[in-house]
Structures are given as structure tokens and as C-alpha cells.
């Protein structure tokens, strides 16, 4: 488990070592976070709002 910092509240977030870019993690502060890779290391950022309508 990698210990990362929540970009919103600054608290600690546990993320699996083999997490993939785009993976979503909900932090206890309520923030919806997205895993991304920066210089080959995992990082977290606030997830973009993505609609979930699967119309069509």
C-alpha cells in the first residue's frame, strides 16, 4: 500500500501499489479522488466530474 496525501484535506490516503491511472478513491473527507502518475509515481488529484449516464 502506498500512502499518499489527499490534495483537498491534506490527510493520508492508502492506495494499492498496483493502482491504475484513472482509478477512483473516495476519501473520508468526502473528496472523490483520481489516481494519476507523475514521474512514474502514483499521485492523487480531485477527480473530474464525469457523467454516468449510459444512455443510447
Amino acid at each position: 500500500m502506498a500512502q499518499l496525501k489527499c490534495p483537498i484535506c491534506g490527510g493520508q490516503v492508502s492506495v494499492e501499489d498496483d493502482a491504475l491511472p484513472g482509478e477512483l478513491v473516495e476519501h473520508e473527507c468526502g473528496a472523490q479522488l483520481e489516481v494519476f502518475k507523475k514521474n512514474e509515481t502514483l499521485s492523487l488529484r480531485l477527480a473530474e466530474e464525469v457523467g454516468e449516464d449510459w444512455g443510447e
Partner: protein
Amino acid sequence: MIVVKAGGRVIKQARDKVLESIGRLGEKVILVHGGGDQVTEVSKRMGVEPTFVTSPNGIRSRYTSMEELEVYVMVMGMLNKFMTAYLIKAGKRAFGMTGVDGPTLLAERKKKIVIIDERGKKRIIDGGYTGKVVQVRTESITSILEGVDVVVMSPIAVDKEEGLPLNVDGDQAAFSIASALKAESLVLLTDVEGVLMEGKVVSHLDVSQASELSSKIGPGMNRKLMMAAESVKAGVKRVTISSGLVNDPVAEAINGRGTVIE
């Protein structure tokens, strides 16, 4: 002016019949064609595997990767040019195009979607290259139709922001073009005889009957009925859903075969 939509299965089983039927018409025609099965065949031959994704609430659906988009554009273009050439042999001035050209069909795609991946994790991925038509610009079609008899249209739209062609649903393309041009008649040629209720073809529906019925029947046909109702509201005089596998299918449809929504 008539808009004819011929689905991929009709093109596969009865292409020449449809084209000859169009060749016999005196009016100007816009023929929107499908070709999904043909796209799947070529994808297989090229070793492009179909991709499926699962939404957070468990809905599994087809995903159009960039590689599949390329195959889609290739196959549609091929079907288009062979049909256009065939119509030219039949004495028609025919012109094949797509919604990219002009541009004529502007579409948007979902840039990002949330899926549940193979490991059960929620993940944001690229949204695939299927688009929804958001605008029809009729200038190019209108000016081309002044000089030709038939426009053969492939269901490909353009994403203006990204500068990419997008796979759009053939029915949606046909309905939006017919609506934008307020066509006299939109004929949907399918591999069934029309809208079926208790095993019999419903011969006539008004707009509210079509909307109502659309919630009660199977997928595929329900969307056609919904779009048919909307196009009639938007100014299309008459939508006919009819068999493309009979002789002279367009004349048959115009003469009342199948289901008429008006």
C-alpha cells in the same frame, strides 16, 4: 425529397435491390446506409478485438476504441463508394459523402466515462469514439443535391473540437438529416415488415400512438418509433418503417407497405 435509411443487414442481403429501387425513383434521394455487420467482419480479419465496458451500476456495453473507429470509417467508406458507383452505372448522378464533409453532421462524444474495471475498481477512462449528433448543417447536402439525384451518406459525424470522425448511429443520422431538411418522407428499410403487435404489422400510427407504443416494444424498434415521432413533430411529413428485403422496397414503402407514422 426522400430520405431512405437502409440498415447494415439490408445492405448485406439486398443491396442491389435497394439501389435499383432508388434508381427507379424520379425524386431526389438521400440514402443513409448502415454496415455494422460488415465492420465486425473486417475487425475480426484485422485482429481487432471488440471491447466491452461495465458501468458502475452494472450495465455492460460496447466500447469503440480508436482502432475500431478506424475500421468503422474504412468499412463505411468502402460500402459508400461501391454503392455510389453502382448508382452511377444505373444512370443516376450519385454523390457519396459522410457527415464529416462540409461539415454536415456535428457530434459530441463522452470524453471520459467511469467504468468498473476487471479488478472491480471504479476507474475513469477515455469515452470511446461514438458520438451523438448535436447539429446538422444542411448547406452542403442542399447544394450538392442541386446537381445530383442521389446523395449516399455514411453515418460518420465530426467532433469539431477534437478534429476526429465519430461513429454515429445510422438511424439517428437519418432522422436528424430528415428533420433538418423537413423531408417529405423518411423510409426506414429494415429486415422486418414493420412495427409488429401481436404478430401483425401495425399499418398506421399517429405521433402520440408512436410515442406511446415505443415504451411497449423491443429494443431497436422502440428507438425507431421514438425518433419517428420526434421527426414528424420536427416537420417530416411521413415516416415509414418497412422491409428492405422485398422487391422494389422503396416504392413498396411509399405505397404504404409497413408501418406509417404521420
